[in-house]
């Protein structure tokens, strides 16, 4: 059975200087393999610079892998045009990146519009999504991003990522920039969302509590490599020194 995401031997070597074809021998990510099933959330945990974000970008090809293979629902990512691939993968980043000149409705409807949906279908979907992320469509549809709080903005960011109902969602520290209270609020809502949606998710964070709370499985990255992969329970009990450091920090 094909899974929403299969990653095999993924690697990224920094490009060499000048026009040489080969890289410069420094790997940001090396030999990373995992799979994520429908309804599963893989949390990639690690320190800053451990390669978590790079791994996400290799999956949706914001960076081109220099080694290994990514399969989305069985299809090889590198065989698809990058833009088509990305429209099938929801993407949420810490800075949200809403378009400031678009209303909430146009922001959320972005991917459906790129995909050429009929306007009435987009409008209906946008309303549905805002309700899913806990924003009243009547209040928020026509607002602009600068009229929203940080928490509301990230809700819109999540709604935008879900718009075309992608089989896979990539989240890069989505709650990292929020105040502690809003963060906990959104984490709880996100947990409820996970159960309702059944999407496969890869969730990057350096917050071990957040990771333990939201993960089906945890992958620990260290110096570009995946050094641990297992359930939150296994993570708590792991003897791996890096896992222990993270558990001590929690």
């Amino acid at each position, binding site marked *: 059975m094909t899974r929403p995401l299969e990653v095999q031997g993924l690697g990224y070597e920094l490009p060499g200087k000048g026009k040489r074809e080969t890289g410069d021998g420094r790997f940001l990510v090396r030999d990373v393999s995992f799979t994520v099933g429908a309804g599963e959330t893989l949390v990639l945990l690690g320190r800053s610079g451990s390669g978590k974000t790079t791994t996400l970008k290799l999956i949706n090809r914001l960076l081109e892998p220099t080694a290994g293979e990514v399969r989305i629902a069985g299809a090889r990512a590198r065989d698809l045009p990058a*833009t088509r*691939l990305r429209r099938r993968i929801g993407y949420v*980043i810490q800075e949200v990146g809403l378009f400031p000149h678009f209303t909430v409705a146009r922001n959320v409807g972005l991917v459906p519009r790129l995909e050429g949906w009929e306007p009435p279908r987009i409008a209906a979907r946008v309303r549905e999504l805002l309700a899913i992320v806990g924003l009243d469509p009547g209040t928020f549809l026509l607002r602009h991003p*600068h009229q929203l709080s940080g928490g509301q903005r990230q809700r819109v960011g999540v709604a935008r990522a879900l718009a075309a109902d992608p089989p896979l969602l990539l989240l890069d520290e989505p709650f990292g920039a929020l105040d502690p209270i809003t963060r906990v609020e959104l984490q709880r809502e996100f947990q409820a969302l996970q159960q309702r949606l059944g999407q496969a998710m890869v969730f990057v964070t350096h917050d071990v509590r957040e990771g333990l709370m939201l993960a089906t499985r945890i992958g620990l990255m260290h110096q570009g490599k995946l050094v641990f992969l297992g359930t939150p329970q296994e993570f708590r009990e792991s003897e791996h020194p890096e896992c222990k450091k993270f558990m001590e920090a929690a």
Partner: protein
Amino acid sequence: MSLWDFYARNSGEVLGLVGQHLSLVATSTAIAVVVGVPGGVLLTRRPAWRGPVLGLANVFQTIPSLALFGFLIPLPFIGGIGATTAIVALVVYALLPIVRNTYTGIAGVDPAVREAGRGMGMTDWQLLTQVELPLGLGVILAGVRVATVVSVGTATIAAAIGAGGLGVYIFRGVAVVDDTLILAGALPAALMALAADALFGLAERRFAWRAR
């Protein structure tokens, strides 16, 4: 003879020169926008070209306008006496602010917005037309504004190479030492510059998204 008497007696000629002046400025600015905006966009895609291109445009900017008009006269096709030469020179001057501001406007778009757009699966063209140009429009218009205002002034010198415009009165006034005549050319030119400044200023504020 007062300025108003002069205008009253020569209203036909005045209007003709104002028209010529406007057409010099409008034509050259339009060409500079058509060339300069894509040029600025190209610089955002080819960062290595930025230094040389902006440097070259800077150098052109330092050539005194009278000298540039003179240099252009002997050149085939774009040179000679008349409006074509003047327009070429005015385009050269207008290019720098437009190219530079287009580059700055697009480079100033929040990187997170660009990453989100690419991450959502926008093509480079969609990102440019739906995100980068609309968000950079305020800064781009500021460049067009500067270019237009400078053009209105520089176009007065075009009269020296037979391109007409309000400079005709100014040069004639200088030659015969007649302040009224100089003013007859300078005043409408100044008003034109102020009007262009105000007009583009309004447009600029209308599209300044990132100020919020």
